[in-house]
C-alpha cells in the first residue's frame, strides 16, 4: 500500500508535469481567472520580485520548440534555439496573452532579440533592464540599484500602478519561500537521489517560473515537507531492514552544468544509464533559486545584492575563476562523480567558459562529458549509449 503522503506528493508533482506540458495554456487560464497582467521574462536575471510587486505575473519564456518559420525572416540560422524559438512563438501568435515583456541584458543574442521584438511585436509593452556586466565593483552595484529603481518606476507606469515598499517586501517574501523550498528539495535530492526522479525535480523547478507564485510557494513547501518525511521514513525502514534488502547499485552521482536546459528527458536517460543528477549549475536549476533576498533592508537594494552575490552566469563578470571555483566546490559538496555539460548550440557565453571549466574539473579529478544540443536532443539511442559509456567510466 502506498502511504497517504506519497499519493499527495505524487499528485503535486503530477500537477507540475501537467503545467509544463502546456505552460501557455496554464498562464492563459490563470490570467482569465485572476485578471492579472502577464509579463514575459527571458533570463534568471529578470527581477521577478518587482513584477510580482506590481501585481503582475512573471512568466519565463523558453520557446516552445515549434518549427522555425516566421523567425527566419529576422534571425539567422546561427542564433541559439532559445532566442529563435521565443521569437517564433510570439510572431506566430502563441504569446498573444502577454501584456508586456522584460529583457534583462545578458548575451549579444538576447540584446538583439530585444530590439527585434520591440520593432515587430505590437500590443505588448517592452522594457529593457540593461544590467551591468561587471558585478564586482562598487560602481556596478550602485548602477544595478539605480537601474532597478528606474525599472520599478517604468514598470509601474506601464501597468498603471504605484509599487510600494510593502508590495516589494511581500513579493520578496514569496520569492524567498519559493527559493528556500527548492533549496530543501535539491538538498534532499542530493542526499538521497532515489527519493525523487530527476524529471520531477525539473518539473518542480520549471513550474516555479510559470505558476502563480503564491500557489507554487505553498506547493513547493508541501513537497519539501513530504519529501523530508519520506526520507526520514525510509532511513528508519532502511536501517530496520539492513542486510535483507536486495542491493541495487547506487546510481553514479552527476552534476549538470550549463545554461538553460529545457530537456526533461535528459534526466530520465541519465537515470536509465545508471546515473542520477544530484546537483546543477543551470539557469533552469540552482541559478534560479540560489541566494535569498534580505527581507530587512531597502527592498530594491536587497534585490540588487542578491544578483551581485548569486552564482554568476557566464554572461556576467565576477572575477576570473568564479564559475570554476563554484563548480568544483559544488561537485565536492555533492560528492559528484562526474559532470555533464549541457550547452545550447550557438550560445557564446557558455561555449567560452566550457574549456576552462572543463580544465578546472580535470585538475580536480572529476570526469566530464559535453553534450551540445541545437533544439532537441539527439536521437534517443545515441544519447543513451553516450551516457552509458560515461556512467560506466566514472568512479
Amino acid at each position: 500500500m502506498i502511504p497517504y503522503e506519497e499519493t499527495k506528493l505524487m499528485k503535486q508533482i503530477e500537477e507540475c508535469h501537467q503545467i509544463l506540458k502546456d505552460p501557455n495554456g496554464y498562464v492563459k487560464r490563470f490570467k482569465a481567472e485572476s485578471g492579472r497582467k502577464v509579463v514575459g521574462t527571458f533570463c534568471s536575471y529578470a527581477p521577478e520580485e518587482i513584477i510580482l510587486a506590481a501585481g503582475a505575473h512573471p512568466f519565463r519564456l523558453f520557446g516552445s520548440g515549434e518549427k522555425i518559420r516566421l523567425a527566419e525572416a529576422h534571425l539567422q540560422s546561427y542564433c541559439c534555439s532559445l532566442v529563435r524559438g521565443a521569437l517564433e512563438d510570439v510572431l506566430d501568435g502563441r504569446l498573444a496573452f502577454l501584456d508586456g515583456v522584460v529583457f534583462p541584458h545578458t548575451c549579444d543574442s538576447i540584446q538583439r532579440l530585444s530590439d527585434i521584438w520591440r520593432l515587430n511585436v505590437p500590443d505588448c509593452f517592452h522594457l529593457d533592464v540593461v544590467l551591468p556586466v561587471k558585478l564586482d565593483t562598487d560602481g556596478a552595484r550602485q548602477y544595478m540599484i539605480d537601474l532597478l529603481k528606474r525599472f520599478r518606476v517604468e514598470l509601474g507606469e506601464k501597468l498603471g500602478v504605484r509599487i510600494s515598499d510593502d508590495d516589494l517586501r511581500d513579493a520578496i517574501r514569496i520569492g524567498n519561500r519559493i527559493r528556500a523550498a527548492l533549496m530543501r528539495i535539491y538538498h534532499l535530492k542530493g542526499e538521497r537521489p532515489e527519493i525523487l526522479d530527476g524529471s520531477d525535480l525539473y518539473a518542480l523547478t520549471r513550474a516555479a517560473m510559470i505558476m502563480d507564485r503564491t500557489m507554487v510557494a505553498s506547493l513547493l513547501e508541501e513537497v519539501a515537507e513530504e519529501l523530508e518525511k519520506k526520507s526520514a521514513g525510509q532511513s528508519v525502514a532502511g536501517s530496520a531492514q539492513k542486510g535483507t534488502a536486495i542491493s541495487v547499485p547506487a546510481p553514479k552521482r552527476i552534476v549538470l552544468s550549463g545554461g538553460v536546459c529545457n530537456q526533461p528527458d535528459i534526466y530520465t536517460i541519465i537515470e536509465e544509464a545508471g546515473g542520477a543528477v544530484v546537483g546543477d549549475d543551470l539557469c533552469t536549476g540552482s541559478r534560479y533559486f540560489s541566494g535569498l533576498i534580505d527581507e530587512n533592508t531597502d527592498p530594491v537594494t536587497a534585490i540588487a545584492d542578491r544578483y551581485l552575490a548569486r552564482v554568476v552566469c557566464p554572461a556576467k563578470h565576477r572575477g576570473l575563476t568564479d564559475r570554476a571555483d563554484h563548480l568544483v566546490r559544488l561537485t565536492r559538496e555533492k560528492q559528484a562523480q562526474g559532470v555533464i555539460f549541457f550547452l545550447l548550440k550557438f550560445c557564446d557565453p557558455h561555449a567560452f567558459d566550457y574549456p576552462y571549466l572543463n580544465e578546472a574539473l580535470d585538475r580536480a579529478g572529476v570526469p566530464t562529458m559535453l553534450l551540445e544540443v541545437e533544439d532537441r536532443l539527439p536521437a534517443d539511442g545515441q544519447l543513451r549509449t553516450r551516457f552509458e559509456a560515461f556512467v560506466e567510466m566514472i568512479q
Partner: protein
Amino acid sequence: MAEKDEAKEKRKIKTVAKMKEIMTAYYIDAKTAVQTGKKVAWITSGGPVEPLIAMDVIPVYPENHGAMVGASKMGADLCEKAEAMGYSSDLCSYARADIACAPVNGGPIGGLPRPDMLVCCNNICGTVLKWYEVQARFFKVPLFILDTPVCHTGYSEEAKRYVKGQIGEYIAFLEKVCGKRFDYDRIKEVGKLSVQGQRLWQEILDTAMNRPAPISAFDAFFHLALIVTLRGTGQTVDYYKMLLAEMQERVAEGIGAVPSEKYRLLWDNLPVWYRTKWLSEKFASHDACLVADTYTSAWCGALRYVDENDFLGSMAECHARIYLNIGVDEMAMQVMEMADKYDVDGIVMHSNRSCKPYSFGQYDIQRIIREQKGLPTLMIEADMVDERSFSEGQIETRIDAFIEVLKGKNQAMG
C-alpha cells in the same frame, strides 16, 4: 577586358607604402617592448586607447591581429586549433584565432607581444568580455573592463553615471599597473590628436561622396589600421593628412577606385578578410564600387559626442554610444543616412557568423531600408576570418544576380 597597366598604376594609392612602414615599425616597437622597458596593453577595438598613449603604454589590438590572420589566410587553421582546445566553432573567429595563437606564438607575425595588462570595453559585443577573461587567465595579468551598457533606445542617466565613474577607475588601474601618476596634461594633447585623427579619417571617407569615388571600402579596410591602433598619436594625424591630400588630388583628376564606376554600394559588417581582393575585383568587374561602409566609419562615429576641450569627460559617452552599442532601429537610421550621404544604389550586407551583435538585426535593417528608401540589398553569408564559411560559387551567383537587379532599376529609370 584587362585594363592597361598604366591606368592601373595610376589608380594605386601611393601612401600605401608609408602605411606599411608605419605598421611594421609599430609592431617591431611592440614586440621589443620587453627590451625597451615599455609596458604593453591588449585592448579591444572600441576601447579607450588614449589614456594608454598618455601613459606611454603600447596598445596592441588582438582584433587587428585577427584581421591580419584572416588576410594571410591562416584563419581556418588557427580556428581549428582553437576547436581542438575545446572552443566551439560557432564562436567569433577573431577570438578563436587569437586564443589559438597565444600559447604557440602562432599567426603571421609570430604572435602578439605578451601583455602586461588587458583592457576590454564591451561596447562592441559580449564576446570580448569572455575572450579577455580567457587571456587574462592565460597570461595571468590584470584585466580592466569598461562596461558600457547598451543603448537600446537611449543613453540613460544611470548608465551615464556608471560609465563616467569607470573612467576614474580606469585611470586608477593604469596608475597601479604602470606604477606612476596619470598625466592629465598629456591626455589633453593626446585627446586633441585623437579627435584630429578621427576628423581626418572622416574627411578621407567623405571623399567617396564624389563621383567617381577615389577610395572604396576595400581601401578603407586597409587604411583603417591606424585610427584603430595609433589613435591619439601625431603619426596618425600626419599619415591621414597625406592620405587625404592624395584623395583630394584623385578627386581633382577624376581618378576613381573602380575604373568606370557605375553602381555605388554600401557595405555593412566586418570585411571578409581573406577575400577582400576577390570581392573587390568581383564588384569592380561589374563597375560597382563599394563607396562606404558601416565598419570603418565606426571609428569616427563618436565625433558627435566628443568634447575636444574635455576629452576625458566626454570619453564615457563616446564609447557607450558607438554604432554597435545602439538599437537596431538606430543602426538602420544611420545606414540610411550614409546611403543618402554617399548616394548609393544598393547595400551589401555581410551576414557574419562570427559577429552576432553586428549580424542579428540585419534582416530588419534590410527591411526598414527597403520600406523607407526602396534600396535593394544583397545578403552574403560568410565569416570574417574563418574561410571554411565562404562558398565562392554561391556568393558569386548572388553578386551577379544583384547586379542584374541594379541594372534593371537603372534601365527602368531610363
